[in-house]
């Protein structure tokens, strides 16, 4: 943990926003990332647990997921859907009961499967100021405190991934959801954050990151191959 020097647990959104406007104040959602960091800090945590952001609503084709909904709840609530599969794979049992949807979006690491699943599900992000933006836009310009995420859960989906072992964080993963509005593919492991694409042609033009688990060349190969599989499964 980053040796927080202060802690607040506000009861209202406005109180939280006001605290977060102050220097060194950071949002504390579940804590799987922030509390795991052992570096010394001057940070003051603003715990979001009492803001009532932990509810979910679903209708036939859409769902609104509060920012503080735990990934374990996503697994249960979206059983059989891409969101459930991504949340189950994102964190093991003892951490997905702590990690939140909002925290995933806020951090949005290269390999985050939940964010990729949200991208494939045409997610929009609602922030404290009431603004609703596409997740793609939010990721490129993250502003505001995430309040909820809205997703399209209609249509069919596919998920392909390659890792060292079956439950390893994928080196590259491709997910897709085909709805009445078309097909969206998302990829992890190719950029600093998950990306959304609409065709294999777009994937071909990606120059992926590289690390010890996979070179850029190999990740490019995987991105193309897994995207083709996703499209094949959904066509």
């Amino acid at each position, binding site marked *: *943990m*980053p040796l927080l020097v202060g802690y607040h647990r506000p009861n209202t959104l406005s109180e939280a926003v006001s605290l977060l406007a102050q220097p060194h104040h950071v949002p*504390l959602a*579940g804590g799987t990332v922030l509390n*795991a960091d052992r570096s010394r800090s001057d940070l003051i945590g603003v*715990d979001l647990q009492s803001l009532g952001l932990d509810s979910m609503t679903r209708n036939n084709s859409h769902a609104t997921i509060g920012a503080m909904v735990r990934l374990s709840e996503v697994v249960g609530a979206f059983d059989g859907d891409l969101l459930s599969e991504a949340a189950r794979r994102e964190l*093991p049992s*003892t951490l997905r009961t*702590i990690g939140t949807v909002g925290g995933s979006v806020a951090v949005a690491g290269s390999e985050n499967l939940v964010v990729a699943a949200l991208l494939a599900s045409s997610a929009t992000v609602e922030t404290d100021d009431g603004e609703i933006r596409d997740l793609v836009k939010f990721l490129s310009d993250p502003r505001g405190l995430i309040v909820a995420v809205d997703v399209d859960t209609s249509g069919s989906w596919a998920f392909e991934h390659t890792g060292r072992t079956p439950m*390893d964080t994928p080196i590259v993963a491709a997910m897709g959801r085909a709805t009445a509005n078309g097909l969206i593919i998302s990829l992890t492991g190719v950029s600093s954050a998950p990306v959304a694409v609409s065709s294999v042609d777009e994937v071909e033009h990606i120059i992926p990151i590289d690390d010890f688990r996979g070179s850029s060349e190999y990740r490019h190969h995987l991105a193309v191959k897994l995207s083709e599989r996703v499209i094949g499964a959904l066509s």
Partner: protein
Amino acid sequence: MTQITLTLNGRTVHGQCEVHDTLRTFLRSQGMFSVHYGSDSGETGAGAVLFDGRLASSDVILAVQADRHEVVTVESLNTSAELHPIQAAFVAAGAFQSGYSAGAMVLGTLALLNESPSPTEAQIRDMLSGILDRETAYVKPVEAIHRAAAVLRGEETAPFAPVILPSLTQGGEPSEYDPSDTPPVAPAAVPRVIPSRDVPEMAVVGKPEIKVDAIRLAKGNPAFTDDIELRNMLYAKVLRSPHAHARILDIDDSGARSLPGVHEVLHYKNTPRVKYASGGQSWPNPHPHDQVSFDNKVRHVGDRVAVVAAESPEIAAHACSLINVTYEVLPAIFDERDSMADGVVVIHDESDTVEIHDRDRNIVHHIAARRNDPVGAVERAEANGHHVFTQTFRVHQVQQCPIEPHISIAWLDEDERLVIRTATQVPFHARRMVAPLLDRDIKDIRVVKPRIGGGFGAKQEMLIEDIVGHLAQATRRPVRLELDRSEEFIGSRTRHPQTLTFTTVVDDEGKLVSQDLYIIGNTGPYGTHGYTVQTVAGLRGLTQYNAPNKRFRCDVVYTNIPVPGAYRGYGAPQAEFALEAHMDDIAAELGFDSIEFKRKNWLRLGDELNIAPHLGERAASDEELDEYPRVLSTGLEECVAQALREIEWHRRDDPEWRQPSDRPNIRRGLGFAYCMHGTAIPFLDMGGCSIKLNDDGSFNMLVGATDLGTGADTVLGQIAAEVLGVPLDDIKVYSSDTDMTPFDTGAYASSTTYISGTAAMRAAEAARERIKERAAMLLGVEQPCSIELRDRRAYAPDGRSVSMEDIALDSLHTQEQEQIMGTASYVSPECPPPFAAQVIEIEVDIDTGQVTVKKMAMAVDCGVAINPVTASGQVEGGMLQALGYAHCEEYAFDDNGKMINDSFGPYHIYRADEMPETAVYLVQTMEDSGPFGAKAVAEIPKDGVAPALRHALQNAVGVSINEIPFTPERVWRAMNSSAATS
């Protein structure tokens, strides 16, 4: 400090905490010692609790976040002496080894069964996905949860016991493989035992007895090093090097010393320079002694620079950041193949390290051993029509990954002797080795080894005991040092990387004429176990096949990687990967079936171990040898037969199975490896034991052997119980404490059952003789030798008997009083090899190179398994670690030698929800030199997975890869390369 209130195990608790305190820290301050540290990021699950009813890692929840929440720990179940049904199921199934994560597993089961009374296997494995287990391979925990669910549903469960199977072979001869013979159906957790007619039926030995430490583990009772509270404890933190190789020009510790709460700062400028070698080995430790507690040079990223003792871990860490170190950064070298080049880098240029073989070329040791004329065999090969094969293999660096990291606590006792409570495999070595560093006599040091949360060799080292010793002496206060997970990776010990080159000469009949092995062994910046591990690699690489000519050469070299040391298998996994792969490739080249080719050459009953005496610290020359040791027991053919049936070996040649029509991108393959290991180090490993009789007819047994979770205490107790004719529950085992228990070299080299077990047997026999004397006196029998002990009684030949309690009361209180006790120690002249057959089934995605391991089975001849449940647990856990070695675990570094994956996840170890199916067969043989016929079992499961996986890859996709691990990109590139050249 912040005030919090939470509901803990059903009661309201008010407490104070720092804002940054984790829930784990808070719970332990409340006496909840079942909540253990595995890492700061929570992925080990050792600190998992029920948080508002959900299983959650308390490492990443702040205590302040838990305010007004409900927390449950396993202590909530400990309302009576009885075990909760879930705890009882875990105990019955042998699901705990070290038990370090027992609390988390039990609580996870509780939550799961509350939600799903009849969970699927997938649900169980998903629940366990967040609790990393390096010991059981999750096999028995899964079985325990199934059984607990059944009990809680009110169903009857059969006792957990082995399945007894008939033999498939006769007289050690190979059997004809029968494709129609299907494998036996039994739960994966149940060991399949193939009894030998040479082994008599026994009362306690060979039975699946409950572990003697089961209660404390199941209940999460304070049993581990960290589970004590000492007044005025200080916390230590090590400042580690950011450079792979640098000279320390100066250290300014004034900033750290001025920080409130700091009590001591130690480094090279204020610590005596006493040379040592840290490997936990018998006296005298092999040279070179190339370490000091704190040096003016660092030789790897993570090397010690200084240490701080402070009032809290946070203050100590802050103080480390205030130490100003001036470095002169030096060139570094990481690959053993580059290290010997002239003038590259000299890693040990200090004058006080002696006995380095070639300092300027970083060669620590040059090892050479030979049998007959292997060079001539190569030279004459062409003339003789023989075939010569040379292949080079590379094996990489991995870590033992015990879930409990290294931890030591030291203090001065009431007599001002130094007590070190430490997670060690070698308490007696640690005491002897630390003494000169602390300028103390051995008699003024007491090392206590409590329950250990796994070691696997990492703790066969005097790693941090000197640090806490120095600090306790300097501050005169108790000092605790626990490594975090990153430090465990970069600052403890690892497996040696090696480059191995085999040259083998084979005749037209497929018989080996000669075998030559040259190894470049990478010992990192310090020698520690470098010499011995490479020697064992040579031993294992050149012993398991017959060849009249053999040669071993090895250069052990320094580099600037994190320090390799002992790791379960100890050189054998490296050598056997290369050896078996080499043999597979020779067989393919010569057109032999791989198993048949190996069978032509593998060791049989009576064959000589013909390189063994020439290797090791006490190697013998030809002239010194009367005869070579021989194989006196082997069940190898039975192992092969059982393993091939289990994996349905005929599918290997079935094209429809190998290329499933409904999954065009998948290819399947089966692989096999033959394994042979050793049992202890002859003439070196030694164990002691003492047993005394108590008033009620029970016994206290003191052993120096160190149970790492392997079940050693249980096995030793079973051996004594069998001798004394009492149930295991009447033997109270205590290990190990250098003040209290007899000497033992420690838990390594697959020695505990064989060496310490023989000591236990002999101590029990000595006690038994006195008991018989007393019984004869009480029964009026003239011949004490005619007395028989069984069922807690001593029987005369005419059937009259006296209870053990009556004998005890008489001997302690009534007439000619004496304390009946037996003491014994044992060192073996033998090293009987266990044998095994390892098989594996895989799928390969030919588009991506991803390898999925579907099944592993191992059939092991470990002599007589004293406890088949704990023995099979050893095999399961060993295979899991071996699978990680072969498949996914690896150290990754940046260009400057900094490890970039020093946490779980990036360094991936197998989880419960991705484990392949496993099966374990225990093939009994009678090894007359072992206690009740036992040989070793703990290390051989590490030897066969990598070569079997390579063999399966050849079967599936036709590629031969000479480097591990078999990661997706490596396999993909090999397939591409193969396609390009074919």
